[in-house]
């Protein structure tokens, strides 16, 4: 745990990178979805997986069942990204990508497909931007559903996830008219967090 924890400088650097990346991601999402999505200033923590659920509960105040979609990403830094949203907010989430189909009666799209689409778009935009800031081009795997009505604790079952350490990067997505919240979390193995430390050091020393 000690050696994968971030130093204060590294944490500041990661925070700065995440801020820049979310700015980029917001711009890209706005042009894709044709509506302005506000992304909160991301909050970054490195926690043990067994503490992840409690930490995330403290950060978000979520006390209800959630829907969780997972997606792998890899370069030399690799891990898993989760999009988590209150089960009751799935409709709002899907409305984000639903628009074009309103005018296309015969091309129907299921709610499950919309949900994967929106999770993929949010993950893709945010993770790509962060990785680009670290000078990496990630490759993604297809999104998969962890569950539609899960307790936060069940999302982070330490014996199910391959990761022992989680980089919690918590971002709120919200819309101007309907406010909803979705949260993005990046999970990484020790090895990848170490590589990220190195990448952050390289950026710090180049300043």
């Amino acid at each position, binding site marked *: 745990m000690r050696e994968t924890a971030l130093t204060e400088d590294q944490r500041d650097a990661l925070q700065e990178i995440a801020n820049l990346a979310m700015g980029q991601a917001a711009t*890209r*999402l706005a*042009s*894709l979805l044709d509506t302005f999505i506000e992304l909160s200033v991301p909050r970054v923590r490195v926690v043990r997986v067994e503490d992840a659920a409690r930490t995330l509960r403290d950060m978000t105040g979520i006390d209800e069942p959630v829907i969780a979609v997972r997606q792998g990403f890899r370069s030399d830094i690799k891990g898993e990204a989760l999009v988590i949203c209150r089960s009751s907010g799935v409709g709002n989430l899907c409305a984000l990508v639903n628009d*074009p*189909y309103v005018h*296309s009666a015969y*091309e129907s*799209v*299921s709610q*499950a*497909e919309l949900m*994967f*689409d929106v999770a*993929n*778009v949010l*993950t*893709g*935009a945010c*993770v*790509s931007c962060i990785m*680009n800031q670290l000078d990496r*081009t990630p*490759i*993604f795997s*297809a*999104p998969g559903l962890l569950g539609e009505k899960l307790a936060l604790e069940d999302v982070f079952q330490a014996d199910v996830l391959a990761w022992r350490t989680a980089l919690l990067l918590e971002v709120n997505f919200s819309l101007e008219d309907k406010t909803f919240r979705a949260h993005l979390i990046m999970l990484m193995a020790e090895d990848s967090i170490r590589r990220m430390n190195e990448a952050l050091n390289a950026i710090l020393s180049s300043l």
Partner: protein
Amino acid sequence: MEQSLSDLVIERVGFGIFVLDRSMKVLMWNRFMQDNSGMAAEQVVGKSIFDSFPELPRVWLTRKVESVFQLGSFAFSSWEQRPYLFKFDHDRPITGGVDFMQQDCTFMPLTRGREVVAVCVTISDVTHVSVMQREREEAVVKLREYANRDGLTGIANRRFFEARLRDEFSRWQRYGGELSVLLFDLDHFKDINDRFGHAVGDTVLRVMAQRVADAVRAQDIFGRFGGEEFALLLPCTPLADAMVVAEKIRTTICDTPVEAEGMRVPVTASVGGAAARAGLPGYEVLINEADAALYSAKRQGRNRSVALA
């Protein structure tokens, strides 16, 4: 010109690879796509993909590709939500209902520097996965049904019967109305087993279960409670009506002897009935009361039906 190794791999590889520009024009088309679509690269490359395949979902596909250009990130489509993009034949002769090759699609950004110059689409044939999943779902449905049935008679087993009784009882507690239960038992069944053998005993149970199942209403739940004991749950039925059914069951059983292994075995049954009434704490008590009525029918000489007094 000699093809590079990468070109040879792309030609031979076992999944579809093609490349689109931002106006949906095809830039590349591999052998898999050619073999499955019947359209060669020369026919497809340089034109909009919708010129060659007008049946493709235009809004959906354009949007997928555009999202990759705008986000510089991947997009996906799974057979579980969208069984196929292209109407390709699959190579499985017997697939039990899968009409076309089931496809997983990946949309990858091809970048030069930070700029997305094109989108590469890969198509994986996952027909075998979908067939396996379908078979597994069918097996689960079958297992669930077997779990609710009694192996010998094919009617509901005790577990299923009690679950339904619990549901009906809580409905009755909430909404009121009428709810009756009959328990019945073949008289002197042990003697039948001893005199004619277990094979005949089993036939008697099977035939009786079948006769009664044919005689009861569709909305009633008929189950084997264990051994030679059976139970019938009658929702929305007052006790007096339930006892009419009890007599019908009793006569159905005793009117005709059972033919088994060349022998005629006369069978009679005793029936006990009880109905839900105010103050009953749980469905178990309802069963106990029907059981007490059944006991009293036995004591009064068997081959009769008795309602809980």
